[in-house]
């Protein structure tokens, strides 16, 4: 995973509450088998008119927000479906930081698996960032994960909270599975005293290795 330390980038506003993951990557793109290439589908139904022409009414299509890498949005961002296609799309579009008053749990969790930094700020601070983004064309922020700070070029300086372990993993781009496998002995010990293999008492119509071997 790509480590995240410090990032400076253009801010794009998405002034909507409860943006769900269906909206980020609609169903038809959840049939692909890869993790890559979802950026062009991000916010598909809002972003495109028929024939995949950019919809000029959609905020992110405005010329001033092209190349944005910090998304500023509203509460409960990422609610709904668990599809990781949503953070894949957000990251592939070019975002590295998301700022909102709150995020939905599964989406929030999925962000950290994909090198994205979701930052939660109080409503008043998010309101202020929206004001500044609209007022100053080319509004940029610098986000420092190590210091847990957000700064703009006009002197605004904010701090944010983040779980220390999530921070550590993101700073170092650590692979979760690798970390867990360091506890292999504990997993094995747990399995020995916690037998959970389901026992089948009745024939069901299921492919299984046993059936394949018959």
């Amino acid at each position, binding site marked *: 995973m790509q480590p995240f330390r410090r990032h400076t980038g253009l801010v794009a506003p998405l002034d*909507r*509450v*409860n943006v*769900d993951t*269906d*909206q980020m990557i*609609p*169903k*038809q793109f*959840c*049939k*692909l*088998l*890869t*993790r890559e290439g979802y950026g062009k589908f991000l916010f598909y*139904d809002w972003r495109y008119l028929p024939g995949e022409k950019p919809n000029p009414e959609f905020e992110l299509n405005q010329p001033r927000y092209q190349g944005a890498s910090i998304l500023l949005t*509203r*509460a*409960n961002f990422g*609610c*709904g*479906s*668990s*599809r*990781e296609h949503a*953070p894949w799309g957000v990251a592939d579009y070019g975002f590295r930081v998301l700022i909102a008053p*709150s995020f*939905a*749990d*599964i989406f929030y*969790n*999925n962000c950290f*698996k994909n090198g994205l930094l979701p930052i939660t700020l109080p409503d008043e601070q998010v309101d202020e960032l929206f004001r500044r983004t609209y007022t100053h064309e080319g509004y940029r922020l610098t986000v420092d994960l190590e210091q847990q700070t957000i700064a703009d070029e006009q002197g605004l300086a904010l701090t944010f909270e983040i*779980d*220390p*372990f999530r921070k550590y993993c993101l700073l170092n781009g650590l692979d*979760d*599975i690798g970390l*867990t*496998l360091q*506890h292999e002995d*504990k*997993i094995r010990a*747990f*399995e020995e005293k*916690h037998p*959970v*293999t*389901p*026992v*089948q*008492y*009745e024939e*069901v*119509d*299921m*492919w*299984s*290795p046993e059936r*394949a071997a018959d």
Partner: protein
Amino acid sequence: MATQTMYEKIWNAHLVHQEDGQPSLIYIDRHLIHEGTSPQAFAGLRAAGRKVRRPDLTFAVMDHSVSTKDRTLPVLDDNARAQFEALWRNCRETGVRLFDMHSRNQGIVHIIGPELGLTQPGLTIVCGDSHTSTHGAFGALAFGIGTSEIEHVLATQTLPQFKSKTMLIHVTGRRPPGVTAKDIILAIIRKIGVAGGTGHVIEYAGEGITDLSMEGRMTVCNMSIEAGARAGMIAPDDTTYAWMEGRPFVPRGKDFQLAVDYWKTLPSDPGARFDTVVELEISQLAPQVTWGTTPGMVADVTGVVPDPASFTDPVERKAAERALQYMALEPGTRIIDISIDRVFIGSCTNSRLEDLRMAARVVEGRRVARTVKQALVVPGSRVVKAQAEKEGLDRIFKAAGFEWRDAGCSMCIGMNDDVLPAGERCASTSNRNFEGRQGKGGRTHLVSPIMAAAAAIAGHFVDIRDWGVGQVE
């Protein structure tokens, strides 16, 4: 020893490792997978040279993209076919058990888990699908995960997890006739909001919950995620044990008794402390109908579409304005005056036998309104379908003008060809009324199965209580 909630008991029983300042490592008893979110996880596993650690604890099913029409025909959608082939190949290569689209036991993952008895009290259950919360109805800790976490569970059979906060939702009073589990959960979401449960595991309790059948309890837990909670749980009781006994993967005879003895230790201790407590009184509850684009935008069937101006919070007001524009609704419109184009009875929320029985009783001897273009009944599993056919429910639906389909996720998510066309309005028993959820530009109103059935007959929403509730309860 200090009192514990059911969540804490199950959490503690699955702790593999804990360390200050780090998420705890939790053991996973059942990993359910489907074609939609698993291919990238298997690919990641392969790329890293890792194996599926416990194929015996992993069960796969095809549900999201399957056709609900004739499955003997070839799959014409190239992307869907590639998903099915990938799942088939991944299961064969790793030894994971698979219910493919031709299996007699195939169905929506959250319907077949309980149906097969794979879902049991006290287990930890995960699936790459947010509605995994459904399984909590049995007193299991069950939650949806992303694809990276699927890969993690495949490789390690564990998940690093931060402990959630706990919320008790105490539902008091007796459920009035015509009011179902769906109305209770919609009323809960209306009360606490679509982010009200964020960061929490919800336990539902009180007579309004214990009075429900297992089917109803699953409907309630299913939509926990629509309130922002990752998991919902209900303490197991005699209703739970009776429902489970004799299912293919449930212990039998003396072993069943031993299992029940263990399950009886699971409910939250009296006086256990929850971080948040919510009360809902349901003796006056009316059937619920959503009017907007989140499950929290919901009204009594006797009510009207609200005026966005009545929202004090500017962000909420803007969301309501946007929702009404998308839904093509005017403030003040009576809910019962909203006409519908299509009806969908199905999804992991409401496609179990009880749902179909109740809906069939509403439509029996009646006809779908001429103005309704399509009324679909999609059983949640092939076992549900077979049982419904044995009871003659299919004939009742077909005689009334409904289409009787094969099992799958269908028009809840529209990944197959059951899609709600743009600009059309659907009375749906599913769980999400998000913009475009059932199809781009489609307008979804979430309701209970009996409310959807009645709307199909009338061509618009009706208060099911006016139809003589004796026939539906």
